[in-house]
């Protein structure tokens, strides 16, 4: 049973993937502390590492074009194991919602509204997200194309405005760190944010596109998001050099320094607004996916009754997840990549493998 019958176009889907990844340009602190001036290398490596997994996601979408991840789990693993795995995924979606909500709140608190309590920021923000989620996938993804393009334009402007601060010596020494640091950095980037695109398996039935054409749009969305992340890291490294790892928000620090002569300076509020818009798109999507998964697992006709209760739970969960930003960064660097590997790479791979072994889509069609 399809709960949300809304449909999105291929372009909306592509830019939703891109927008989702672009929103993570705030989270570079998780890996720049590990690989410093070589961080751009690990972003490219992670992009390449994630490509085969992206094709696994695409294969799952192609094999089950009319089913979302929760329905696929039940079909592939059976009702008992399938529901356990789905419950784990719901926890993963809720945790991602709360983590991104917390990121947004910390960002706004640190940069724009230091005197406003975090709870007020989170509450007002989630209220807008809840309003969007209420209207379904069409509204959740409607403006992602615009958001994504705005961020690309602002990023291009930021590169121009920081051009006078760029020093290519900052990239040196290159490949000067232990190999394990590159493996660690690649693992972090491949799970946060590249692997997180697994959440798009929840909206497969809502994409107005023949299953065979999904790969093109998913891949292009992934490429746009990946390129933006590489450009962000290249710019930050070129401006900040190997002190990149000392900042909790390196990207924002770079943008704070942007100016065009004397006339145009203090432009960070513009960059901050774009980041908030992107995080709005990301949190709204994750919030939607969480309530949709819950409605799917409990076999509801609509996801609407869950919206406010899950929103309230997401806010309090955001507070109890980590006691400080430093604890968040420490966990994001060490434990989270290992945990997320299960949801983003191991389980999708198992799903595809078992589906192939059981010849599931074909078997179902015969039945």
């Amino acid at each position, binding site marked *: 049973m399809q709960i949300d019958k809304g449909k999105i176009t291929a372009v909306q889907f592509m830019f939703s993937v891109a927008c989702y990844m672009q929103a993570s340009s705030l989270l570079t602190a998780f890996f720049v502390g590990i690989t410093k001036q070589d961080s751009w290398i690990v972003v490219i490596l992670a992009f390449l590492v994630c490509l085969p997994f992206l094709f696994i996601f695409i294969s799952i979408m192609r094999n089950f074009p009319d089913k979302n991840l929760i329905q696929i789990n039940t079909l592939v693993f059976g009702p008992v194991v399938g529901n356990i795995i789905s419950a784990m995924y719901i*926890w993963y979606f809720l*945790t991602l919602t709360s983590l991104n909500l917390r990121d947004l709140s910390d960002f706004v608190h640190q940069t724009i509204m230091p005197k406003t309590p975090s709870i007020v920021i989170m*509450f007002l923000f989630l209220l807008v997200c809840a309003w969007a989620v209420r209207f379904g996938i069409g509204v959740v993804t409607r403006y992602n194309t615009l958001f994504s393009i705005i961020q690309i334009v602002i990023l291009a402007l930021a590169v121009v405005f920081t051009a006078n601060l760029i020093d290519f010596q900052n990239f040196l020494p290159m490949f000067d760190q232990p190999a*394990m640091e590159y493996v*660690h950095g690649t*693992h972090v980037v491949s799970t946060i944010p590249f692997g997180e695109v697994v959440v798009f398996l929840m909206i497969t039935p809502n994409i107005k596109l023949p299953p065979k054409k999904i790969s093109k749009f998913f891949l292009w969305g992934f490429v746009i998001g990946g390129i933006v992340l590489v450009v962000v890291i290249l710019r930050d490294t070129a401006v900040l050099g190997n002190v990149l790892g000392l900042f909790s928000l390196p990207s924002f620090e770079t943008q704070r320094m942007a100016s065009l002569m004397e006339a145009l300076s203090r432009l960070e509020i513009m960059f901050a607004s774009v980041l908030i818009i992107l995080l709005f798109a990301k949190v709204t999507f994750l919030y939607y996916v969480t309530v949709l998964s*819950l409605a799917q697992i*409990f076999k*509801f006709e609509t996801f609407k*009754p*869950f*919206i*406010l*209760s*899950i929103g*309230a*739970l997401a806010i*309090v*969960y955001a*507070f*109890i*997840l*980590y*006691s400080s930003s430093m*604890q968040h960064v420490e*966990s994001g*660097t*060490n*434990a*989270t990549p*290992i*945990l997320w590997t299960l949801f983003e790479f191991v389980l999708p791979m198992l799903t595809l493998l078992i589906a192939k072994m059981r010849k599931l889509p074909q078997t179902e069609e015969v039945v």
Partner: protein
Amino acid sequence: MPYVIFAFLVIALIDFLPLIKQKKYKELFCVGAFFITGVVLSILYVSGVVIPSPMVLLGDFLKKVLHLSY
């Protein structure tokens, strides 16, 4: 604390009344479970009780039991 109780009362009114009117008791039970979890966690949090974070606990489990960490 009063703000938390007020917020959850508003949520209860918006979410539960339509479900009760439509006699959707299964939905009411499921949504109620998440609602109560939210209420309990919020009251504990604003009362200053330290609630263990699942992410930190899982991180410790990976590190100390499974020896999986960087």
